[in-house]
């Protein structure tokens, strides 16, 4: 076991890891940050997306030791400083962009990465960008709506 340190949600943290410990396991088990979810074992579902040095990454496909010293943001770090929902989180609530909530952390993290790259994406761009995040509840309608709304664009009335 090795002590692995990084910055998560603005705080310096460390936890014991094996070489094979995934970043997702490091966050969930090492740090108790259970907002990052594991929905598959083939890096397909995107429930575990976090930001590593500003880039959206599936945390199940990265070894914790490989991102030693990185600056990581998880869903737990997305609210405003006063604890209120951040813009994207608020848009997901306003537009009913989540149901069971399991894919939601990954959806929010991917959406945040999209809007950082492309502040006013088209509907098609949103759908294409979110291909790596599977949701079984919403039929994606309200997720796409929420992301469009979070970018300040008009959304379909229903």
């Amino acid at each position, binding site marked *: 076991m090795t002590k692995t340190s990084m910055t998560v949600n603005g705080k310096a943290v460390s936890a014991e890891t094996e070489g094979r410990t995934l970043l997702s396991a490091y966050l969930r088990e090492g740090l108790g940050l259970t907002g990052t979810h594991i929905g598959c074992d083939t890096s397909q579902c995107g429930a575990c997306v976090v930001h590593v040095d500003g880039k959206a990454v599936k945390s199940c496909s990265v070894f914790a030791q490989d991102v030693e010293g990185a600056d990581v943001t998880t869903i*737990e770090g997305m609210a405003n400083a006063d604890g209120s929902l951040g813009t994207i989180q608020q848009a997901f609530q306003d537009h009913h962009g989540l149901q069971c909530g399991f894919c939601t952390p990954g959806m929010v993290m991917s959406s945040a990465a999209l809007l950082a790259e492309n502040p006013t994406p088209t509907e098609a761009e949103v759908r294409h960008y979110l291909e790596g995040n599977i949701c*079984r*509840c919403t*039929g994606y309608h309200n997720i796409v709506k929420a992301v469009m709304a979070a970018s300040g664009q008009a959304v379909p009335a229903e």
Partner: protein
Amino acid sequence: MPKDGGIGDSTKRREDIRFLTGKGRYTDDINLRGQAYAYFLRSEVANGRINGIDAKAALAMPGVLAVLTGADFAGMGGNPAGWLINSRNGEPMKEPKRPVLAHGKVRHVGDAYAVVIAETYQQARDAAAAVEADITELPAVVDMAQALADSTNLVHDEIGTNQCFDWGWIEDNRAAVEEAFKNAPHVTTLELTNNRLVPNAMEPRASLADYDAGTGDYKLYTTSQNPHLHRLLIAAFVMGMPENKLTVIAPDVGGGFGSKIYHYGEEAAVLHAAKVLNRPVKWVAERSESFLSDAHGRDHVTKIELATTKDGQFLALRSETMANVGAYLSNFSTATPTFLHGTLMAGPYKTPLVYVNVKTVFTNTAPVDAYRGAGRPEATFSIERIIDKCARELGLDQAEIRRKNLLTPDQFPYTTPVGLVYDTGNYQATLDKMTELADLAGFEARRAESAKRGKLRGLGLSTWIEACGIAPSNLVGVLGARVGLFDAATVRVNATGNISVMTGAHSHGQGHETVFAQIVAEQLGIPATSVEIVHGDTSKIPFGMGSYGSRSLAVAGSAMTKAVDKIIAKGKKIAAHMLEASEDDIEFKDGNFSVAGTDKAKSFGEIAFSAYVPHNYPLESLEPGLEETAFYDPGNFTYPAGAYACEVEVDPDTGKVEIAAFTCADDFGNVMNPMIVNGQVHGGVGQGIGQALLENTSYDENGQLLTGSFMDYAMPRADDVPFYKVDHSCNTPCTHNPLGVKGCGEAGAIGSPPAVVNAVIDALHRGGHTHVSHINMPVSPARVWAAINSK
């Protein structure tokens, strides 16, 4: 206008805050001090004899605490089927034992036969590789027709057949239906499959078991849609313990879609292991295990025939179906292809004669059970596809043939030829609304525009009905159900006026915490924020059959409103005492109890406080406290219905289908929260499009699962679907429950697949490929291209 936060308001969901900030508490997020981890060994062959399991090497590995095998559970009971179905000849169905872990034989790839418990998950997984299982592979039974034809190769040797039952519904209709077909001016015939699906809720199944050696109490945190049903099955049927020694908690659950209704062996295995080791034991499925061991859905092979007049009046309908139940009977597996399928074969139409035959078949594949819609999507797909084919044969418009045969509003209540009584509906209204919203009048112009781009555009319709709000216990009892399907609620008004509602429904995405609070707030005239909804814990809620079959509001919601009515009645007694008036003179309105015709009144909060500070109560006639429980058993099923339109564009060069538009006009009865109802329809339609275009579960002839991960099982993704148009303004409130609600959870998944396939066939016909009469789902590019080029 509804008052803020009351019935009919699109109140934003309160549960979203925890889900959006990473504070949800799913089973895998819960950890108990000293917990060990389980890893299950699963069969790599579809059919095999277990000669021996040698765990010596595994037990010597670091951190390993125990290896349990089927032999350790052989003395326990079997996991039962919830419905007893009789065959046409009166024989009861074959019901082989479903053990906790496979013992003697493994019967499908993924069938668990041993479990390793270790200090860490990785240690358990590593040690599993050192368990030596001597298993002789036997020939697998995979194809249903072969399984029925071959009585030498059996999934369960002890029952002597691969057929579970051969069911006729209604057997008394059979002769009259045959006669009608003999004399019919026109008969349309279609053979089709309803493709096997993997539910794939995004949260894999998980269980965390705890045992208190001091009291002998077990506690199970698990991914359940119905914790009381789990408690009943585990305690009374499998492990043989008093129900009051087991608490089942289903915390936040990440989607269910049917797959988390059922009790699975892993749950009993970790409970037993927790006792053996005197430590909590956790198991979380990897997605690969979900594919191999969650109950799959659908998997019907059907021949359906429709007899009509030359102008398209339906005279009779009959179908013969083989339904796969997989290797073991899952809890609802016998009800799904029968009473949730055969009873729906009249659809929303006035077809006078209907007969349905279903043979259920054991195969060496994962168990098959109810998946969103459960039997009703299979019925709807068969009916709506054959109507489409019939219309083409007779040269009739798709909307007209439906309009001609739909039941009319004056016909309700309507007794169908397959044993249901539809209480209310207006199928013309939803068809008209869909016609308007989908702009069917403008279709030809859109088709011409698509043609300019080299695309074939098609329009497909589906007018569907379902029976939900499951279910009247007296009726389902006659039909073979071994449980009642009522529900319960306790409303506890605390001394300070806030309220806890313990409901038997379970929310795993449906938003009950918000909607149920809206309803109670409306009834009591208090802010919704004063009401908290408690669910998912057998130690807190009175009883509950859980959430599936679009039953939460119609059944558990009705129990809740009944309990609130009792609270109001008790409040009136208290008010009468406090106001020194007759109970009969007390009126309750907008949160105030008042004496009729006076200005004497007490607020709800004052009544609640008085109930817990009863300093001068006449105790012989008035009990302190303000808490009521109600049980509600529905008088009938509810019958949501709707009309859907799908437009597709087909690329004739590649066979690729794109959904260009999807429109839903539904009748759900009264709507409590329109935002949430719309979301339920979106999700159902997304799943229906997935079934129609993308998803398929494929086993090879040896019973190996070829689609065992998200890399080869095509889940719908954001760019596979469009924005949907949904509407639920054509309401005919349910006549027999207090809220007038019908249920909306399954609608989209029921109505959408035939609309998609009808649209593809329509596109091909309009494009001149009139030789294509059907394509089985999923309507993949390869299948469409092959169909186009099959002439």
